[in-house]
């Protein structure tokens, strides 16, 4: 796995840290360890990269709903949330592979669209805003904002 991708996942997992209880079922007391934290970190990174790829695709005129698994008219925040949940349920090897695929997909789309780094950052901001909406369904706003900010900075770093 790309070391930068691994580092980004670790960085996000660290940011979630002791706030992980917001993202686990309330009827269970979890004293989560590193392995689970990496799943959470990876899932958030995956949600960001997929969301970014989708947004960049829209910028170059890719029609929403053309790809398998995309729903027409689905808000980006819902899409990002679905992608986070999608990765969280996978085994580690599959997660690693899907993360790399998402990284490559996002890179390729940026390249195809010919986006400048400033434009990438601007698009990333849009995804960050949507991620805040997604995370706020589970965690308090200030925690969602803090984590989404870290996901964005770590995510942009792997592109």
């Amino acid at each position: 796995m790309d070391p930068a991708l691994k580092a980004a996942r670790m960085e996000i997992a660290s940011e979630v840290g002791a706030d992980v209880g917001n993202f686990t079922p309330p009827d269970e007391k979890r004293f989560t360890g590193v392995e689970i934290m990496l799943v959470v970190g990876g899932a958030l990174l995956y949600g960001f990269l997929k969301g970014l790829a989708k947004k960049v695709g829209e910028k170059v005129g890719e029609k929403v709903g053309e790809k398998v698994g995309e729903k027409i008219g689905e808000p980006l925040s819902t899409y990002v949330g679905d992608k986070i949940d999608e990765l969280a349920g996978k085994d580690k090897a599959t997660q690693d592979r899907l993360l790399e695929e998402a990284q490559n997909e996002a890179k390729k789309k940026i390249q195809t669209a010919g986006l400048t780094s400033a434009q990438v950052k601007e698009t990333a901001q849009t995804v960050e805003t949507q991620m805040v909406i997604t995370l706020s369904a589970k965690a308090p706003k200030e925690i969602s904002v803090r984590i989404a900010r870290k996901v964005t900075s770590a995510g942009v770093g792997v592109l």
Partner: protein
Amino acid sequence: MSDHAVSQAFAALQRLLVVVDPDYGESGWQVAHSFLLLPPDKQSANHWYRGRGSGFIHVDENLNGQYVKELPADVDPASVIDLPPAQYPTVLATMKSLLPKFEDGRRPEFESRLNELTKASSPTHAQEHTRNFQFLAQAALMASQKTLLTYLRKQADFHYQTGMIQGSVTGTEAAAALLIQKLAEAIARASPAADTVFQRLVSTPVISMEQLSAYMVRDCIQNGFSQQAYEVLRAVLSEGNGLVEGAREGLHPVGHPETMLDLYYFGLLGAAPYLRAAMVGYEVAARNPALSDAERKTYATRGNAAEEKLVRVSDAMMFAVKDLDGSQSRVKRAEIQKALATGNEDKAQGLAMEAVDLKLFYPKPFKQVLLEPDAKA
């Protein structure tokens, strides 16, 4: 042992007792010592342990511990490990043993704190303390609602600051005083009809401050102040989370990095009552029959997240006691350095993350101390 070292040890033990309450701190202290009495093969991964009071804890192959109320059907009850009774000297006895080591001029201050902590640890303390609180609240309310609010504000300040420092109140009581005061302010602003809630606050028979605060959340919701109650809980949780994040920055006076850890643990201690208040408040709020399923789940999650963070904060207080001589830090650092030396950077990063970000044992700047080969712990 220098006077400074004795003060540090005394303060660490006091934090352990007041972060939640003396029973909780003492129970954790005894369990930690009991665990060390187990043979090494039973201190390792993949075991089930009987929980404190109720439930079971599973420690998996990655040393993640998970608490469950019921033992899963596929686990042989005979395989569950019971911790042997440690009968280790109590936290209070350990604190008492430190007193002769203080310089003469400073000893009375610590003696006084120990006396207060001993009273706060007595079985009758919670009810007597609450009865006094209610009695004076009733007198204040008889004067006016404004007098009551002034009384509650002073009580919240006392509980959260002087009381916890002196050892005369517990973190749980400070949490309750804060929650009661903030709810009172919010509903008094909203409506003069708040009097019904205030009457119940001063007259409902309860066994503890925590029960009183829980009843007040319930009474607010039942008397048309749901919105105010939820806003107070949101603010209380936000304050607790913010205090934890602030402490984690590891700030210290210029030129005095040696104070970083003490300030860090003190900062975490300050967050604990807010987290406890959020935990209790959201647990009650989640039972409001008027909520939708989604709202109920959100509030239950908030309460659970606050509780989990508080558990980490209180575990950090236990860690601080164990690490007074720096031995725990040296072991952790050696483990991380060993992983780095064998090229296992993922493991090293994971261990550092676990200690700093997940278990909250250290403030953020310590991550580099753990990871850098030539850093000084």
